[in-house]
């Protein structure tokens, strides 16, 4: 078995294989003074910051995006690529005019899928971005999943229900768009 960086990532670092609260702790540690990266990252403080929130969302949703996009491009029509290339067009042309337009719906569908995953993230966000400040726009705002948990934990189920229903509606809307794009793709 060849042991590459990719294998190392798949086994130990992929957010697919580690609990998301641990991801949150890992992100915290990465930016802490004990981290080997601290000299490079000391000017950045992601805790309770929009950066921390974005990082947590990105870390858990990017593998879904990357794996699905790779699968989509792997399924692309290679014969069409050869044909267009043999007409004198280079790889950039093929990427821009063949791959992207042909896979556009899939790219949007996968982006929505990743967005859905990012929105529903809780485990890592509660560790690194419990209450987010992004001046001058907002201060001490809880991300929606944290907010639902907070409402449930402090005030009980009835208090959390409305917010949970709102998030569910957003998630279902995203799922609907993903379904509609998949159907359109299948028909084309």
């Amino acid at each position: 078995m060849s042991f590459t960086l990719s294998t190392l990532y798949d086994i130990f670092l992929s957010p697919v294989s580690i609990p998301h609260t641990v991801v949150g702790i890992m992100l915290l540690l990465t930016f802490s003074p004990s981290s080997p990266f601290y000299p490079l990252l000391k000017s950045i403080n992601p805790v309770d910051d929009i950066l921390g929130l974005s990082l947590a969302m990105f870390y858990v949703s990017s593998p879904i995006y990357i794996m699905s996009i790779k699968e989509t491009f792997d399924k692309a029509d290679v014969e069409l690529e050869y044909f267009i290339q043999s007409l004198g067009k280079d790889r950039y042309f093929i990427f821009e005019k063949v791959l992207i337009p042909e896979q556009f719906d899939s790219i949007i569908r996968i982006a929505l899928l990743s967005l859905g995953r990012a929105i529903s993230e809780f485990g890592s966000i509660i560790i690194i971005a419990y209450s987010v400040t992004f001046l001058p726009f907002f201060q001490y705002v809880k991300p929606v999943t944290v907010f639902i948990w907070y409402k449930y934990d402090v005030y009980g189920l009835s208090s959390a229900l409305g917010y949970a229903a709102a998030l569910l509606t957003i998630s279902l809307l995203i799922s609907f768009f993903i379904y509609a794009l998949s159907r359109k793709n299948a028909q084309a």
Partner: protein
Amino acid sequence: MHKLELKNVSIKRGNLTIGLFNFTFKENESILIYGPNGYGKTTLLLAIAGIIKYEGDIFLDEKPVKNYALEKRGITYAPAKPTLINRISVLDNLKISGNSAVEIAVEMGLKSYFGQKAYTLSDGMKKLVQVSMALGSSAPVILLDEPFAFISEEKSFELKSIINKTQGKIILITSHEIIQNFSEYIDISKYQLRNV
């Protein structure tokens, strides 16, 4: 005067090994490579296009093409599968190849389809557009893999006449059956080095 030379070319693909090909094709020649399925007709075209590896040498206009990228090789390869960029119109597909492709498509009676998105076409129509694009390209060598598949007898006749009229190019065509009126014929079954 364009010239395509194959010198001691052999190709191994899976369990199939074909060769040795020693040919010299000249401008305005159309060559039919025929034989049963699985005997390496497409394999030979893919090797000439540089899509798969081969032993030996291929020269275009006296220059070896082995190390040239597909887009710079001067060889256009139209696959057997009718394949176009689905999300753009037929005309936009043709324009990728150039104005000659548009003219050939008009000659083939495809003008009424120009505004349609390519995915709305039948396989037969896609094939005709694809062949128009290949024949209209500026490359001196055109490789057409099974161009008569998917299309009606009437359209096959028109296509054959357009191929025969095409000037300044070397055209290699594959077919599982012998078709009349080509300059040269290659029986691929005679070039089986190993076919398991």
